[in-house]
């Protein structure tokens, strides 16, 4: 993207200055945009992420968006650069402050020596603060001037996108194409206004204040091996298209942040696929609807966040007892109770595993990044169908809203249409035999025995008849347990990144994958580097076999997760692993500040355990 031909907006004012200014080569940069939620700063993120997707290996973006009710202060952080970018960065190198409150709230996130770009129309920085390079630009008035009287200050975001494009020598033709594609639906005038704002931002001689401009180092490796183009979307969107690819056509839910966007998209998309999605009156009705769809023979989904999952628990227990295939997604947020609705936490693991009453062995999966949201949905569908069981997917707030670019999935080989199987059931059909796991037989199926099956939450015998016999209960409990153990055997083997044995294995789950990988990379490069590996668990229940043997190969197993250290000093996954493998080398690094891990927090946590 830094080829000389593509770095200038042909014929635009300022292009000569932009291309002639001295350029400092940098590996990557962290930019935080701070404004209000209606300023469109998130759409800047969308443009940069898409640019990343269309620029092979040269730019990657990664972002966090604290969700707020419309109108509130909002930030967007992007990290762009060369090669794999795995976290959104511990500190910002650049802060763009649209308002005084943006400046005051976020100047602390700017690293000393960083660049503060502020809107001189709204922000007065502290003149005595010499820690940063202050770059004042009349963003609002320059945008109004560029777009003309009618636009008010709409387009400030695109003006800033132009500024960023100039400062970091981004691919202007590609960005222009993206803007035109994105805004084309709103008419020619919207595109024209946006392009005027973009050009004005790009033309602004920002190097006079900055002293110089930047360009990203070229990737030294051969780049990606991707055979398909990259696609760009957030985690909830990836989850939706994973479900659609897997053949999910029915579902029901109740709105709750940050789950809602999945149900909104499914309600929009499913009719196109011949399916339907019901907005239920409450969470219990939602899971009941979804189980009803599943019982009737469709592949079905429900989902929620924190408190909503609690409400679904009794019905999910019924799903385990009656052996109904269902996908239940939980987009984790801070708890307990209403907790921190728009902040990340990974504190629903125990709820997902043990939330129902009784012994309810569960299948619980967790995606590691946005791309994996797509694939985990497909995997959940496979397990639900193959083993006739509810499957819970634990994703989280960070994955839900974060935009990433990833290789377009091989749709031709992945798309499945779940078919309704109404093959008559043979005379000797048993719904719950002790040693095999037959698929659920939906209504509409003729029973050649003449006996129609009852599915129930009451304990039942192999034929499905309710039974109060303790002996039958013991056998059926064993059956449900063995079934989930059979799921374990169907899972792929664990993959370890880095050293396959040695000093420390860093274990994580869900969205902490990137920061942990980056921390492991840093530790491997450090002086007296430990022999260190990373294992990211995507299957939290059951675990794929072999975990105990893997742990035994390391002196320490450090589990990093975003939940509280608990009464005994271990996070939820760590507690589970310690209980399962009775290995005292398993220790915890936890935190609950509502933010994703900073790389340095993981590095420090691992080092502390190594020196202990």
């Amino acid at each position, binding site marked *: 993207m830094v080829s000389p031909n593509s770095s200038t907006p042909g014929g635009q004012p300022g292009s000569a200055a932009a291309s002639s200014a001295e350029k400092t080569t940098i590996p990557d940069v962290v930019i935080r945009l701070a404004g209000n939620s209606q300023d469109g700063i998130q759409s800047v993120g969308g443009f940069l992420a*898409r640019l990343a*997707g*269309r620029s092979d290996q040269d730019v990657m973006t990664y972002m966090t968006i604290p969700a707020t009710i419309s109108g509130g202060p909002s930030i967007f952080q992007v990290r762009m650069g060369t090669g794999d970018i795995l976290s959104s960065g511990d500190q910002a190198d650049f802060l763009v402050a649209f308002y005084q409150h943006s400046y005051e709230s976020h100047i602390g996130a700017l690293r000393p020596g960083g660049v503060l770009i502020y809107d001189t129309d709204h922000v007065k920085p502290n003149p005595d603060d010499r820690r940063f390079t202050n770059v004042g630009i009349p963003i609002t008035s320059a945008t109004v001037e560029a777009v003309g009287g009618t636009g008010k200050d709409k387009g400030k975001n695109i003006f800033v996108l132009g500024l960023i494009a100039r400062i970091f020598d981004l691919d202007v033709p590609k960005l222009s194409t993206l803007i035109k594609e994105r805004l084309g639906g709103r008419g020619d005038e919207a595109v024209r206004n946006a392009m005027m704002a973009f050009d004005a931002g790009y033309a602004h001689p920002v190097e006079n204040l900055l002293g110089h401009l930047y360009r990203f180092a070229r990737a030294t490796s051969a780049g990606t091996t991707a055979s398909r*183009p990259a*696609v*760009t*979307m957030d985690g909830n*969107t990836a989850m939706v*298209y994973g479900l*659609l*690819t897997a*053949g999910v056509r*029915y579902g*029901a839910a109740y709105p709750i942040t940050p789950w809602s966007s999945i149900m909104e998209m499914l309600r929009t998309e499913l*009719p*196109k*696929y*011949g*399916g*339907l999605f*019901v907005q*239920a*009156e*409450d969470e219990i*009705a*939602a899971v*009941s*609807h*979804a*189980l*009803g*769809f599943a*019982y*009737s*023979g*469709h592949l079905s989904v429900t989902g929620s966040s924190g408190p909503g999952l609690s409400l679904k628990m009794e*019905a999910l227990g*019924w799903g385990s007892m*009656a052996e109904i295939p269902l996908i239940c997604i939980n987009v984790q947020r801070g708890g307990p109770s209403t907790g921190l609705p728009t902040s990340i936490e990974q504190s629903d693991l125990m709820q997902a595993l043990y939330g129902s009453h009784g012994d309810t062995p569960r299948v619980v999966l967790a995606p590691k990044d946005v791309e994996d949201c797509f694939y985990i949905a497909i995997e959940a569908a496979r397990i639900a169908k193959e083993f006739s069981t509810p499957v819970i997917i634990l994703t989280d707030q960070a994955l839900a809203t974060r935009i990433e670019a990833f290789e*377009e*999935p091989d*749709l*031709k080989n992945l*798309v499945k*249409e779940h078919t309704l199987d109404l093959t008559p059931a043979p005379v000797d059909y048993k719904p719950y035999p002790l040693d095999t796991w037959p698929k659920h037989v*939906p*209504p*509409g*199926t*003729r*029973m050649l025995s*003449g*006996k*129609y099956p*009852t*599915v*129930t*939450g009451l304990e039942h015998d192999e034929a499905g*008849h*309710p039974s109060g016999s303790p002996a039958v209960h013991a056998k059926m409990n064993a059956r449900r347990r063995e079934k989930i153990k059979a799921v374990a055997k169907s899972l792929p083997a664990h993959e370890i990144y880095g050293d396959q044995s040695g000093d420390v294995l860093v274990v994580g789950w869900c969205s902490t994958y990137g920061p942990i990988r980056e921390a492991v990379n840093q530790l491997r490069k450090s002086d007296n580097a430990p022999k260190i590996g990373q294992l990211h668990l995507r299957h939290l229940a059951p675990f794929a076999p072999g975990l105990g043997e893997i742990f035994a190969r390391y002196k320490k197993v450090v589990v990093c997760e975003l939940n509280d250290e608990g009464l005994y000093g271990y996070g939820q996954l760590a507690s589970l692993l310690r209980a399962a493998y009775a290995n005292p080398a398993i220790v915890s690094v936890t935190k609950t500040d509502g933010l994703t891990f900073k790389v340095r927090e993981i590095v420090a946590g691992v080092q502390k355990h190594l020196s202990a």
Partner: protein
Amino acid sequence: MSSAPVSAPLVEVPAAGGPGRAPLAKKGLVSDHPTWCPGCGDFAVLASFYRVLEKLNYPQESIVTFAGIGCSSRFPYFVNSHGGHFIHGRSLPFAAAISLGRDDLHVFAFGGDGDGFSIGGNHLFHAARKNTKMTYVIMDNSVYGLTKKQTSPTSPIGFKSKTDPWGAMEQPVNPMKTLLTAGATFVARSHATQVNHMTEMMLRAAQHDGFSVVEILSECVEFNEGAFDAANPRKGGKWQLIDLKKNDGTPEDAARHDPTDEFSAMKLALADAPGYFGVFYEVNRPTKNKLERDLIARTREKTKGASALQLLEGTFAKMR
């Protein structure tokens, strides 16, 4: 309220039970022996329901019976059909989804006053509002029987139970009033001692195109004996039947109840106990089944019937 005219009260029974197959008969519909107490009103409801299924003569595999928790909710175990027993109070959203997902099935839900009006009250309200095609039969005994005599939402003021030893003090739910307010499109009431009437009510409910509810006063002989004698002529009670319009324009029609008239229905619902029996209200409003099917057809037309692969490829192309 102005509404589309409804079918005449006379019941027409569909002919076929599937090509080359014997008509449905009670023998094939009886499953496990009911576990209810001897004398329970629910036996009569079950016997009536077998008759309803015989008359409807649906293919047996297309009948689905579901219930929540409670004495009456054991119902599906005693009917040889696909079905079962869901969690307490939630049979309506579960059963509604079966109907929405599968047009080829005939969906019946059963429950009691506790399951329907207490823990499942929210679902009843919304099921009525959503108008999914299915039939809900509530066996109301005004007491919690399975758990041995606690106050139910339809227990009258002063009712003595284990949870109200000094007498219930809360206003009981009026099921007819509640259902009318919620927007149910078929609301009827019967009495477990009136087998023919009960059968006709359930039959008409099953044939209604939308969410239909029949409340049946069904005595719990163990814990609420004689609760509905006031409506039982054989016990000296008064059987007040709703006299329906014939819809034939005869002068008597004017004096009779028009089941499409919501205000008249509400007047009947407000009558003192034991109240009226029959169809209070019946109108045709588009079912959720139809509205969803139409929505699918419209969107499929817009996308020119594209396959899942084509749709997904189109979406991903836009995200490049």
